């Protein structure tokens, strides 16, 4: 690890300027990505990254500077640059005369699996080879790959006024996908999602929890079933979404619209705005009374657990939507302070996060979960006379207000007269966030819940890709507009 926890605090405070606030967020991260494609090991890729972000508040001016030069001279240069930006923006910032108040965090966090043993390189490749080899069960299978991505991150946040918070994480992301082709038709089935879904904090334990062993054979069998399946029908159907599609539904049509910096307009040039406005909190009926959504940085193993966000705010579980009513946004301290000028009753959560040391924090969704209900999976299926089950996201598109959407899944299955029936390929559905969640008719019990996530939530200028977690039960929605693919 390239920074010394004992010395860097003293070195930083020696050169920190006399301003309203100054912090140093130092991060180092080691990751390794392994892949076996078509039974051939691809090059092992390791990354060792480190650097620090300086934040300076001077009046209503806010400035940042990031550098991987952590020497005394490097820290001094970064601090001077951040101070320069703070002074340049003073009097011209969105804070309009009110200096953003930032905390001095004190504490620590260690994720699951920090002390667990790791697979050796040869053990990891052997595991991937086993799953890859199990995929090749038919000549119609034209591509397949098994992957393992592991990361160890350590972050120290220091403030000039004595704050010090050390957080340490291990992340493990296994993945696998299989593609089959016949007579002009191609289908891909992935385990956990082509863009990674079984993301959790932890080490080797994640592999066991996710059921990676045996995933190759199961996924290969499923892609052949898809290849032989009819196209998804079009029409209005009751829809049963499994957790690995609920994850995407939550992410796009609850998570992004509730980001407070979007609501304040920061993201309008790129990621977009939101159909949610500041006056909706506390009264707006976001979904049916069955809808309960939490920001939960404490859920065991979930991908975006932490004790402090990257502004230093202490994180705790909060309801964002309770019994269908919108309660609070995904907004960190800085956004909350800005929003209170328009709506004094706005609360938020500790979710200002940066993708790494080289980006400043912005409002993200972190762990955003739908709380389980009371209906068993069997009862959900039994209650549907004419419907569809959809699983595993493969396509997502939503307008810049995060309202009108069209999503597609890898796996579809008809439900007829309360029973699961034939598999269908290319299942898609469309809706409008503002009304879709009001059609939520059943929420699965805890047995249907899966703790999932993605490493690839993108937003911000300059762009930032962060890890987010989504735990969800299976859920049903009534009267959804469904369609397939047609040539």
């Amino acid at each position, binding site marked *: 690890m390239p920074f010394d926890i004992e010395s860097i605090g003293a070195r930083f405070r020696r050169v920190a300027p006399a301003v309203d606030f100054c912090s140093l967020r130092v991060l180092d991260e080691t990751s390794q990505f392994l892949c076996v494609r078509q039974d051939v090991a691809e090059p092992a890729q390791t990354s060792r*990254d480190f650097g620090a972000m300086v934040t300076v508040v001077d009046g209503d001016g806010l400035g*940042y500077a990031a550098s991987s030069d952590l020497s005394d001279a*490097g820290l001094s240069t970064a601090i001077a640059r951040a101070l320069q930006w703070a002074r340049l923006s003073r009097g011209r*910032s969105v804070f309009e005369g009110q200096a953003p108040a930032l905390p001095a965090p004190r504490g620590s966090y260690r994720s699951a699996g920090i002390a667990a043993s790791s697979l050796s390189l040869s053990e990891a490749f052997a595991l991937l080879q086993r799953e890859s080899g199990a995929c090749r069960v038919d000549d119609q299978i034209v591509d397949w790959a098994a992957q393992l991505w592991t990361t160890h991150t350590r972050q120290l946040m220091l403030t000039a006024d004595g704050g010090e918070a050390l957080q340490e994480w291990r992340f493990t992301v296994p993945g696998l996908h299989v593609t089959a082709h016949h007579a002009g038709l191609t289908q891909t089935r992935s385990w956990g999602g082509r863009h990674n879904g079984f993301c959790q904090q932890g080490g080797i334990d994640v592999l066991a929890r996710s059921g990676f062993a045996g995933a190759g054979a199961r996924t290969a069998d499923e892609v052949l079933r898809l290849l032989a399946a009819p196209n998804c029908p079009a029409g209005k159907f009751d829809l049963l979404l499994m957790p690995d599609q609920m994850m995407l539904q939550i992410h796009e049509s609850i998570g992004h619209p509730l980001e407070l910096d979007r609501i304040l307009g920061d993201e*309008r040039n790129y990621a977009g705005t939101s159909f949610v406005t500041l006056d909706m909190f506390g009264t707006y009926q976001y979904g049916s009374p069955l809808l309960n959504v939490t920001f939960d940085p404490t859920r065991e193993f979930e991908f975006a657990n932490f004790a402090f966000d990257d502004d230093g705010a202490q994180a705790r579980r909060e309801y964002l939507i309770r019994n269908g009513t919108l309660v609070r946004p995904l907004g960190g301290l800085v956004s909350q302070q800005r929003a209170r000028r328009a709506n004094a009753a706005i609360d938020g959560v500790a979710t200002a996060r940066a993708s790494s040391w080289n980006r400043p924090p912005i409002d993200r969704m972190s762990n955003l979960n739908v709380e389980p209900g009371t209906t068993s999976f069997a009862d959900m299926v039994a209650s549907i006379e004419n419907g569809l089950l959809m699983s595993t996201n493969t396509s997502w598109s939503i*307008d810049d207000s995060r309202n009108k959407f069209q999503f597609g899944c890898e796996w579809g299955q008809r439900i007829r007269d309360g029973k699961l029936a034939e598999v269908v390929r290319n299942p898609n559905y469309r809706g409008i966030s503002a009304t879709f969640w009001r059609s939520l008719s059943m929420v699965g019990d805890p047995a249907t819940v899966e703790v999932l996530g993605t490493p690839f939530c993108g937003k911000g200028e300059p762009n930032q890709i962060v890890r987010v977690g989504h735990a969800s039960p299976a859920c049903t929605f009534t009267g959804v507009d469904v369609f397939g693919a047609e040539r």
Partner: protein
Amino acid sequence: MKEVFFGLVERAIAGLQGREFLLANFSGEVSDFVRFNRARVRQAMTIQQAHLTLTLIDGSRHATIKLALAADPATDALAVDTALADLRADLPSLPDDPYLLYSTTVNSSELVRAGELPRGAEAIDAIIEGARGSDLVGILASGPVFRGFANSAGQRNWHAVDCFNFEWSLYHAQDKAVKSAYAGTHWSRAEAGRRIEAARERLAYLARPAKMMAPGVCRAYLAPAAVDELLWMLNWGGVSAKAQQTKQSPIQRLVERDTHLSDRVHLRENTTEGLAPAFDAAGFVKPSAVDLIAGGRHAGSLVSPRTAREYGLDANGADDEETMQSMELGGGNLAEADAVAALDHGVYIGNLWYLNYSDRPNGRITGMTRFGTFWVEGGRIVAYPVRSIPETLEKHLGQG
């Protein structure tokens, strides 16, 4: 940064053992970013970073490590020594790679494009004053970017470009906005002001009444930004030789001559005219251009060294993902100023947003219109339409 990179490379090469071969890639930047919202500063920052990627090859075994550089010679030297030792220790655990391919022919080059970049205070003044109370949101990014390649055969490549990109939207209300950009190598405060003013003039169109469009077929003009969004979707496995070989390309039917686009469609990767380096991570020099679609027919694919070895193709400088970095769609004879009149009756689409494949084998794309999209009648803008656009590449770029 050039001296830092090549100095570390010399050190690494001096430490090679036996038949070991080394590939080294460098990326660095010293970038200023200023974010604006409502014509005020939201976040202002400087990012200084440099990363060195080392690939150690011994026969057919190889491993890669990417290192952050501290800009401190002793720290960086130790990091390189440690990384090489770790790679060397890993190689015996790795299987032979049948698809390893790297350049051993020495092709050194250097490209340095100096510019005049915006300075912090002056640029902030120019933008805030230019907005003159309009609701401006966006980002100014500027600074030098550096890329380098070296190998133990003696090849040395260096690419350093000063550039800036000011990308902003002026908002009328809700989600109605005009998006603009000003990018280049030589910043002019006057030009920035002129472009903001031009965007403000277009804002007036957004005050026109909204028109809710029913699903159906209509004429459409896609402005360059919208076409750009559509064509970048081909970077999701479209022009990739590997994706085509494994039947996963969204233009698979085009590749297999099952269909063709309009004969006006000419798409190529134009490295010579782009900002990306002219060398790849394996040391191969990129061709000046690669034709991908010519006269509406499939003409070529982007082939990485690995794909070339796996499928017996010729590599053409593509990265591992086989994506376009300097995409060029050949122009026709319609002047942008004549577009609305030529459209006559239909929808003028200024930009597209959140495109995704809803049916990848058939190239079917879904997405939304965004920024400056208008309904045109009688060759004049008359309304602001709203609707989704589930369409296919073939429909937009197809015959007729």
